[in-house]
């Protein structure tokens, strides 16, 4: 099998893995190298599904000893298998990298023989890139469930980011998805080891949404716990899509809007420091309601429009249409005693007035929060 044929199989095996390029916190810029990872939050192409292609996202092999019910690479699935040679993988990646087709490498794998054996193969390919090709760009390596601690340490030394997929929000949900993957030992224990490792672009994880019929509350509970206890940089959510020849092929597809809502709620927790209780307060039966979670929380919790000339940073962040940058600009004006007097100023600052207008008190303008909230409630009920 040649490289082009292998790529067809091993690229397709990794396409459901969500990842993005994150600039590392530190980078040593010597002259005897190829690549860098500082300006790496960029996209080099996109697929017709709108998904950015920034990383060379492949599996090392698609053979696997696990039998996760949602996965096309599961043990019992009759499929064409392929495996890369270390040199082949490194050279293919480098030939794309120097031509600026990709920004970095994302390497995951199915598990052949056992986790340590496969992790050693992956480590070999990554080491080859770092040592022979002097590649100093971005590498994201998946940690396979069940990998030993010393191998995880060695992988962390070579990679910019490491991650292990949780897939399900808790042990009972995991049992629904896989009969031979131990949630606590194979995944959470590995995460605990990863927590103390110094990885320049941090750690991440991924959930499969809807495969085990879990609700949003369970997922956000787990994500919040991970951010607090596992020093996680980011959680990814991937809406379940039934794959042919798997036990879940007749299972309902998870709507993409659910994935979007979870990303939005996650962003509120991670970046805007919302308390999970605030997000739970708008949930119905453990599910996020339709629409933007930030707007729904503002509608449910804000009693009156706020005065931008007096509001604190955290109060500003709670207003839909105002983000970190706009809040910083408003705070700068407050510090310099410059009053905001009209909506044009706000638009110029970068506030999305369409969303923010009803929550802002502006001299000379009638505020409409109450009417707006009533109108919104009517819409939601319908």
């Amino acid at each position, binding site marked *: 099998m040649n*490289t*082009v*044929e292998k*790529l*067809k*199989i*091993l*690229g*397709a095996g990794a*396409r*459901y893995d969500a990842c993005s390029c994150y600039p590392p916190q530190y980078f040593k*810029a010597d*002259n*005897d*190298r*190829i*690549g*860098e990872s500082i*300006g790496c939050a*960029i*996209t*080099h*192409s*996109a*697929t*017709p*599904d*709108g*998904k950015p*292609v920034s990383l*060379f*996202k*492949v599996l090392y092999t698609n053979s696997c000893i696990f039998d996760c019910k949602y996965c096309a690479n599961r043990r019992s699935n009759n499929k064409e298998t392929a495996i890369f040679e270390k040199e082949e993988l490194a*050279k*293919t990646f*480098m*030939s*794309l990298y*120097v*031509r*600026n*087709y990709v920004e970095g490498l994302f390497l995951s794998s199915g598990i052949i023989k056992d986790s340590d054996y496969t992790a050693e193969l992956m480590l070999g390919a990554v080491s080859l890139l770092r040592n*022979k*090709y002097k590649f100093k*760009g971005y590498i994201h390596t998946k940690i396979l469930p069940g990998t030993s601690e010393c191998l995880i340490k060695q992988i962390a030394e070579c990679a910019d980011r490491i991650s292990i997929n949780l897939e399900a929000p808790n042990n009972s949900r995991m049992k629904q998805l896989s009969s031979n993957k131990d949630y606590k030992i194979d995944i959470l224990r590995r995460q605990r080891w990863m927590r103390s490792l110094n990885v320049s672009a941090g750690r991440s994880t991924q959930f499969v949404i809807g495969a085990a019929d879990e609700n949003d509350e369970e997922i956000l509970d787990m994500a919040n716990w991970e951010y607090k206890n596992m020093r996680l940089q980011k959680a990814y959510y991937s809406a379940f*899509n039934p794959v042919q020849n798997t036990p879940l092929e007749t299972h309902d*597809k998870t709507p*993409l809007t659910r994935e979007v809502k979870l990303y939005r709620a996650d962003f509120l927790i991670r970046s805007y420091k919302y308390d999970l209780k605030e997000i739970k307060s708008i949930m119905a039966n453990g599910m996020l309601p339709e629409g933007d979670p930030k707007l729904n929380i503002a509608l449910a919790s804000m009693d009156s429009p706020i005065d931008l000339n007096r509001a604190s940073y955290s109060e500003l962040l709670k207003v839909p249409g105002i983000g970190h*940058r706009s809040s*910083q*600009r408003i*705070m*700068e*004006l407050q510090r*310099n005693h*410059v009053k905001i007097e009209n909506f044009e*100023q706000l638009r*110029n*600052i*970068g506030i999305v007035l369409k969303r923010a207008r009803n929550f802002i008190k502006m001299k000379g303008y009638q505020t409409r929060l109450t009417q707006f909230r009533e109108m919104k409630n009517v819409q939601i009920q319908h």
Partner: protein
Amino acid sequence: MCRFNINQKIEYAERHRDFDKSLAGAVLEQNPRLVNVQATRESRKLYNLCSKVHSELNHLVCFLRFNVNSTGILYAKHTPQNKIEDLILQFFMFRFPLFILVLESKRGIFVGYKNRIVKYEDSFENVMKKLEKIPKAELKDLEQFDNKIWESFYKSQIIKQRFNKKLFKKQIPKKYLKMQSFEIEKRDFENRSLNEF
């Protein structure tokens, strides 16, 4: 608060093809606190010019694809709308310190090597001949490249159930999709029937 100070904004805006010097003069006369947060019309206009230049730079850093010749020179051909050839090369010089980078544009041939950017008015072939004599990085067979590798990888990443035409267009704006190096993406996208989206 803005990621650029006023001088940086003017520096970037000056590279814009529609830049007018009187705009910079008008902005410099205004209250710097308001200018800093783009709260005046002129400062917003200057900021828009600056961000258009910056946006083109960011896009080209993403979308410009190089060829590698047998002597280890990375070269590409593209004429940006704004005068940013040197900025593009600056980015890639940091990324590939061992390589010679050549960008052929209608404004000239720009060569970047060892933290220096030189503009040549000569023909592309003559410039390449001159550069071939300079010692460069060891290539380790990286000059051999089959476009089928990219095609195969690109096609393997597509998830049919998630087709989203609008999002694709947002990720790769039309003017960049026209670039020769995006032939595979363009072909794949245009050959899909509406029902597939």
